[in-house]
């Protein structure tokens, strides 16, 4: 009992220097201006931290209707994530917990091996990570997680589904430009009620170059990765091996103009031969204008093309023109070609969106925006509709505890 005041003193001293940081966001993305509410989201993010520990809490409530011209495939969920880390010298302990639950009946969950469809009511995922910093730039990290999913048949009877995961790696932050990492991962999924039990594992290594400034104001970053996997995909084929390379270069022409280019390519090795897997190329030109300390006006022009078993293309232009005292006008145009699973629409979907709106920024405290978007998507028929994208983001001042 005599120790109680001492413990309280230590706890209060430990908490004295802690600070609470928060972020709040409310947004709505309607299907149309007049009818369907579309998608609404509320997000709260809080973090309490001190020098040697930190706790983060994120709660995201999402509500969406099931209608709309293009069918939505989600209804409503609440997602709570709590995680933290505590440092004890070279050792860092990182526990975490996620609880995701349906706000309504739950989404359809398709069982493997054509065993029907159930409702996905909720899932929990506790996890624990341990990291250690070693001399000479080495570090190691291991993490384990469990997943318990609550599924339900339409008649109300429940179905158990669980998963276990583990991963670990050793990394080397080499002197100079390079880093290297080697590790492995394991996942297992099982449901005794339907006799389902599967797992996969992989080991691999990656080497990379940190952001490096080259002549002519060019910055380069990249990595090459190789992994070999045991397990089978949904068709019963071996996962095999995969090698990939990603390079990104940014060229600054003037203080307000930069070109950002990324290339990615991956190869799969199966049955003794290498096959082209997925590749992509992207470029983005960013033009920024504004005095230091002012809200800048910005124009972004970009595009990306990808190729694998299917192709996608995306081109976009967006701009923010600062008008007066925190008020800016927003303009955007996006054109996309993507595969679709909407029934009867064929293999692809062309999508064009034009938007215009206003944004008001209150110092570093909040930003409010509203944008009207005209959207055209080519499915079974060509569908046109106008919708609203609006919201507020709020960063309350830090609170010392």
């Amino acid at each position, binding site marked *: 009992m005599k120790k109680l005041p001492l413990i309280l003193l230590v706890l209060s001293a430990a908490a004295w220097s802690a600070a609470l940081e928060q972020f709040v966001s409310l947004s709505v993305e309607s299907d149309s201006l007049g009818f369907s509410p579309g998608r609404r989201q509320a997000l709260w993010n809080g973090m309490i931290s001190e020098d040697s520990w930190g706790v983060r809490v994120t709660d995201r409530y999402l509500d969406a209707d099931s209608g709309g011209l293009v069918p939505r495939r*989600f209804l409503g969920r609440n997602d709570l994530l709590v995680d933290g880390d505590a440092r004890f010298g070279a050792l860092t302990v990182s526990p975490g917990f996620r609880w995701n639950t349906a706000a309504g009946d739950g989404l359809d969950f398709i069982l493997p091996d054509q065993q029907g469809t159930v409702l996905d009511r909720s899932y929990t995922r506790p996890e624990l990570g341990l990291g250690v910093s070693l001399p000479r730039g080495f570090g190691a990290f291991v993490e384990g997680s469990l997943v318990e999913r609550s599924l339900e048949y339409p008649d109300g009877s429940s179905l158990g589904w669980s998963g276990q995961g583990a991963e670990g790696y050793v990394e080397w932050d080499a002197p100079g430009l390079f880093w290297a990492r080697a590790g492995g991962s394991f996942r297992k999924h099982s449901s005794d009620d339907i006799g389902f039990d599967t797992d996969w594992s992989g080991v691999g290594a990656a080497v990379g170059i940190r952001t490096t400034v080259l002549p*002519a104001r060019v910055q380069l970053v990249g990595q090459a990765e190789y992994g070999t996997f045991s*397990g089978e995909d949904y068709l019963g084929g071996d996962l095999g091996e995969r090698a990939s390379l990603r390079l990104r*270069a940014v060229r600054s022409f003037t203080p307000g103009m930069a070109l950002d*280019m990324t290339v990615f390519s991956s190869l*799969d090795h199966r049955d003794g031969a290498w096959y*082209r897997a997925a590749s*992509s190329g992207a470029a983005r030109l960013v033009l920024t204008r504004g005095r230091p300390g002012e809200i800048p006006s910005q124009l972004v022009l970009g595009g990306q093309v990808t190729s694998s078993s299917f192709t996608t293309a995306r081109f976009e232009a967006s701009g923010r023109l600062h008008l007066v005292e925190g008020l800016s006008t927003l303009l955007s145009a996006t054109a*996309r070609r*993507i595969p679709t699973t909407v029934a009867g629409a064929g293999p692809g979907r062309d999508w064009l969106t034009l938007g215009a709106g206003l944004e008001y920024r209150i110092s570093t405290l909040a930003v409010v925006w509203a944008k009207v978007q005209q959207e055209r998507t080519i499915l079974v028929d060509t569908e046109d509709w106008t919708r609203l994208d609006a919201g507020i983001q709020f960063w309350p001042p830090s609170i010392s505890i």
Partner: protein
Amino acid sequence: MTRYASLAGLLMLLLAAACSGPSDTTQLVVDPDLCIGCGECEEVCPYGAVEVVDGQAVIDPVLCHFCLRCVEECPKGAIY
């Protein structure tokens, strides 16, 4: 800049030339530069194959049935 872009393009061509046959991969890629961890892919996956971990979508290669719903719904085009 042109020199670096040409070098990267040449490297990609060499990689593509080194392999045979058209791509028939059943494994999706999440672009770490584009993914914002919004979770829309996780919401629409009917197989429980997508999880957002540390702000990035992670696709389980065994549970994924290549239905491409996540590709269609991703607002950033980060899955391909």
